[in-house]
């Protein structure tokens, strides 16, 4: 949490952009500000005597944008750290596994325009290990046999704990498969 990547990164050096980190942060803030402004379009801003729903989001979004622009300007003026490399493997498998869990734990319907894909409910006993196995691909050091054995153990432990010990209303198996 305290490890701000900029601390150890290399300075951006010469070039028009003197601080890639500031530029990136500034652009991100500007995008956030634009989304905030867009999302509060059409709402009443109001006056101080009767504050409308848009007053807070719109004024905060403007401020975010101001800071974003400020950071972008700084990035051309003062030398700062270079951006760290973005990795794809970690985010893809870890966040992908979370999406997998979200889609399969109780089933869902994905809609792409007119195309609808129904995903069946798999329940914790199947969605759980799927999530763990998919996430484990994020790390190059994962060993197949080890992770399979471990996943089996973890799944049993989770089902035991969340279903039987804590009695959470979480589906365990696809509907109609056994006594759940």
């Amino acid at each position, binding site marked *: 949490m305290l490890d701000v990547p900029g601390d150890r990164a290399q300075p951006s050096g010469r070039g028009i952009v003197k601080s890639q980190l500031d530029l990136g*942060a500034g652009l991100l803030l500007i995008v956030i500000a634009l989304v*905030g402004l867009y999302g509060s379009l059409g709402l009443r801003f109001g006056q101080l005597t009767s504050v409308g729903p848009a007053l807070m989001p719109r004024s905060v979004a403007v401020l975010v944008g101001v*800071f974003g622009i400020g950071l972008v300007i700084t990035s051309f003026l003062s030398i700062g750290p270079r951006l760290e490399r973005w990795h794809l493997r970690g985010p893809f498998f870890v966040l992908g596994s*979370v999406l997998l869990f979200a889609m399969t734990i109780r089933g869902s319907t994905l809609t792409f325009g007119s195309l609808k894909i129904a995903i069946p409910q798999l329940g914790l006993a199947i969605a759980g290990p799927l999530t763990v196995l998919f996430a*484990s691909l994020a790390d190059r050091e994962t060993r197949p046999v080890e992770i399979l054995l471990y996943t089996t153990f973890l799944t049993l432990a989770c089902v035991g704990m969340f279903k039987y010990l804590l009695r959470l209303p979480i589906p365990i198996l696809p509907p109609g498969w056994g006594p759940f």
Partner: protein
Amino acid sequence: MDTLSYLGGGLGELAGNLGLGFAVALSLKNLGLCFLGCLIGTLIGVLPGVGPIATITMLLPITFGIDPVGALIMLAGIYYGAQYGGSTTAILVNIPGEATSVVTTLDGHQMAKQGRAGVALGIAAIGSFIAGTVATIIIAALATPLTKMALLFGPADYFSLMVLGLMFAVVLARGSVARAIAVILVGILLSTVGTDLESGEERLTFGWSEISDGLDVAVLAMGLFGFAEILKNLETTQTRDVVHAAIGNLLPNRKDFRQAAAPIARGTFLGSLLGLLPGNGAVLGPFASYTLEKKLAADPSRFGKGAIEGVAGPEAANNSGAQTAFIPLLTLGIPPNAVMALMVGAMTIHGIVPGPQIMTKQPQLFWGMIASMWLGNLMLLIINLPLIGLWVRFLKVPYRLMFPSIVLLCCIGIYSVANSPIDVFMTAAFGLFGYALLKFGLEPAPLLLGFVLGRLMEEKLRQALVIARGHMTTFVDCQVWLGKCDRPISTGLLVLALLIVIVAVLPSISKSREEVFQDAD
């Protein structure tokens, strides 16, 4: 005479209140829940890279079936456990489990390498216990007067207090002041997502009905702190050097105690004081204590090479700050840091609205929780020292097995908060967002604080403006030169907030601000 009898009456009342609290906390069920909370909290908190925020979110569902008093006692236990677990990891593995135990890695891990891991863990536990005891007494003593004071607060005063809290968060965040303010503003912006309470109109929902109730603090926290943290850890090939030397004797000897006594006392004091501050003051406690001990030491060069003072002081400060951070939450209803923000979420799930009314309307809950704080500290001392062998084994589980399990537990936890797959989906989105923030050098902790305070701030701002018929001057309605002051509290708080920011940007101070944090690098 009057003061004396008042003091006597106050003490009697305090004893009575604590008596009530212990009667609640010492029931077999609550004692068991406190124990279980501490144990599980430590178990998860020991995992490297899993801080209290992720731990609490992950374990939130296990408190669902419990009555509110028991659930809060258990959650508080989980919180202390996670804090303490972080210190264990810091000493044994040199990886801070959370921000506040960064300092402990410096001398704690050195002690461990010299075969004195046991002593380091022992003094950390004993120091934490002493600090926790003092902090519990402080909370109990301050609760009644502060709650009475809170009742004097109008909407304008609340608003100004939150502004002050956010300014503290800005000053205490690492990196530039501008970045910290920007991140807090993003948090406030996120807090406005959902239906506007007054007009009933949807804001920033983009027609997506799932978020018309607003974003959930647990979802945001889990994404920003749980998943983003995993992504970051996966990139840095961690050289986890779990101490191979023997753990050694757990009980510090007489010389250790003599060296550690004063740092523990000073650390407790510093931590309690800083923890009270709105805006994540607790984080500063360990850093301040370490810097102070190093300045006071006869031979500062010992620090960083296994000085026991460098473990005892910061650990005491850490624990007392972690506890006094409950004061703004319980008396004013304002969470001072991200963990407390999560506690608000947990309380809401159990139907408790934090604020001054808890103490008067639910004294059992209030004093029971305070009594359980002390019991929690005692339990940490009792369960942790004998279980150190177990934690060491746990620490040897490789990260390649650990992170998929953390992912699964996070998913189950978030799903169970509202039995909603959409929440899980959103957590993934916030994980990506948090990863981007980290990559651009923006700290996510102030964002969460801004998010939680944002909603309250807007509410109080609008109330204050309605009362003042649209006059912004209501926040600083104070004409000292005319001898007239209608809003002394709000004015004072805003002036203080302004002073803090000015001081923070002054070159000389901002330099020493860096100094306080530099030891951590």
